């Protein structure tokens, strides 16, 4: 992929991510704050907030793991297997075609 194209892609990715995640995070944040306000001081309210906090923690952990993996060079050539798969398939088909009795 040529360099300008790649940069364009990156800009688009950031713009798209901001477009979706920005409002979503804002919406979620305010709603969650409201929920916490509602249940404040209520013992059973903690039960309502707990699963959300758990999911958030697990989600954050996963995000960190993702960042760590990316930093360790895990996604440098992430698209390669899809090309390899097609190549393999083509080779198998070629063998089959050469082996098949001619119609």
């Amino acid at each position: 992929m040529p360099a300008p194209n790649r940069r364009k892609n990156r800009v688009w990715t950031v713009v798209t991510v901001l477009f979706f995640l920005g409002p979503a995070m804002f919406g979620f944040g305010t709603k969650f704050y409201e929920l916490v306000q509602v249940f404040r001081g209520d013992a059973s309210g903690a039960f309502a907030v707990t699963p959300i906090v758990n999911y958030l923690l697990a989600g954050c952990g996963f995000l960190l793991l993702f960042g760590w993996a990316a930093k360790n060079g895990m996604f440098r050539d992430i698209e390669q297997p899809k090309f390899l798969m097609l190549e393999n398939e083509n080779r198998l088909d070629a063998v089959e075609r050469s082996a098949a009795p001619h119609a």
Partner: protein
Amino acid sequence: MNAPEMESSSAIGPESAADLERLVERKLVLWYYFAALTYLIVSMLGGLLMALQLIQCNELQGIELLSPGRWRMLHTNAIAYGFLANAFLGTLHWAIPRLTMRPVLSKPLSYLIFAAWQIVVVSTAVGILLGQAQAVEWGETPVWIDPVALLGLLLVAVNFMAPIAGAKGPMYVSLWYFMAAFVWTFLTYAMGNFIPQYVVCGTNAGAIAGLFIHDLVGLFVTPLGWGLMYYFVPILLKKPIWSHGLSLVGFWGLAFFYPLQGIHHFLYTPIPMFLQYGAVISTIAVEFVVATVIVNFFGTLYGSGRAVVTNLPIRWFYTGMILYFVTCFQCALQVTLTFQQLIHFTDWVVGHAHLVMFGVFSQWLLGIMTYLIPRLTGKEWYSRTLCEWHYWLSATSIVVMFLDLTMAGLFQGWSWSSMQYWDHSTQVSQPFWIVRVFAGLAMFSGQIVFIYNIYRTLSGPRTAPATGLQPATA
């Protein structure tokens, strides 16, 4: 894990036809398909019997072995363990060796598993018909068969894991799904069939049963189905999947969010409310994950849209994907407590189940069969027209059935909540139930057409080289 290792893995592979025969056991794939189609017909007969019972047109009443209640359980079990499991196993015997360039662990073991699985399915059917069902929905398999089935699943995992373990380098997305599915199916089956029976009772058993119903679809059928789509769509379109990176989001999103949703099958039960909220939230979350997968596949299709017209298997696949999106979108709505008040316990849910089990996964598998059967037998389809009939009958009837049952569900829910006499809710359902019978009959006849087509194809002459329903040969 490192890129350089990749080169070595592409160096191996079959060089001759004999190698190819060693790689894929074609006969076994075909056997699995025949078994699958047999159970599909049996299951549909069960559905038909129940549908006729609901409109009070069942003339076979009073015969114990033809009890609609028992056949209703046979209907779901024959689909899950007879049709879907057999068709998946057959297709995996094709896809996994070709993806990894390695044969399965052992051919005799493969045949042993085939035989064992048929015994499991037949004894399940017999057990249910004799009234020995277990009170676990989608797992009514009588308790004495459960350990055998579990052993079978373990052998399946071992047999298929061998070639995957041998493959080097970063794996293609299909293989992630398959690997995870083998682990999940085994764990799910063990959890759902043993814990509510032997360990806990009551509400706790309900939580586990909900998790089981859910995981059976989400962690057995869904990953195998999507794994196969990631394999068959690129090879049929002859271009790679749009983004392998995006498929990562789909896989890990499914792995994380899907199993957390079990309790949403039992909302408003005595299961603690905060757990119900948690299940609802993760159900809505998984809808976003599904969207990424759908985007990925339509990104792949972009630029070759005509394939949907000319290439029949591709049309099956993409129809299934659209319906998958509809199912999941519906799921995100119906899982909310607002919808649940009205639609829980109604035919809305039945419509949803049919849409996902037939509309999505069965249609995918039927599409795969449409593609593979000529390649397995070396014979071109007897009639392309009949293949088209099979597609149109199946696709239209499932959409009609889904819309019909969804509406029926709304009317039933309103009837109950407005405190009508109970009769009212069954009376108001009658027109919908009648339409459902006809949709079911159309669906059934589609499968009969397919089986007839297979029969004529097999008894016809060899027309090698068969390449499936490619545009060039159509």
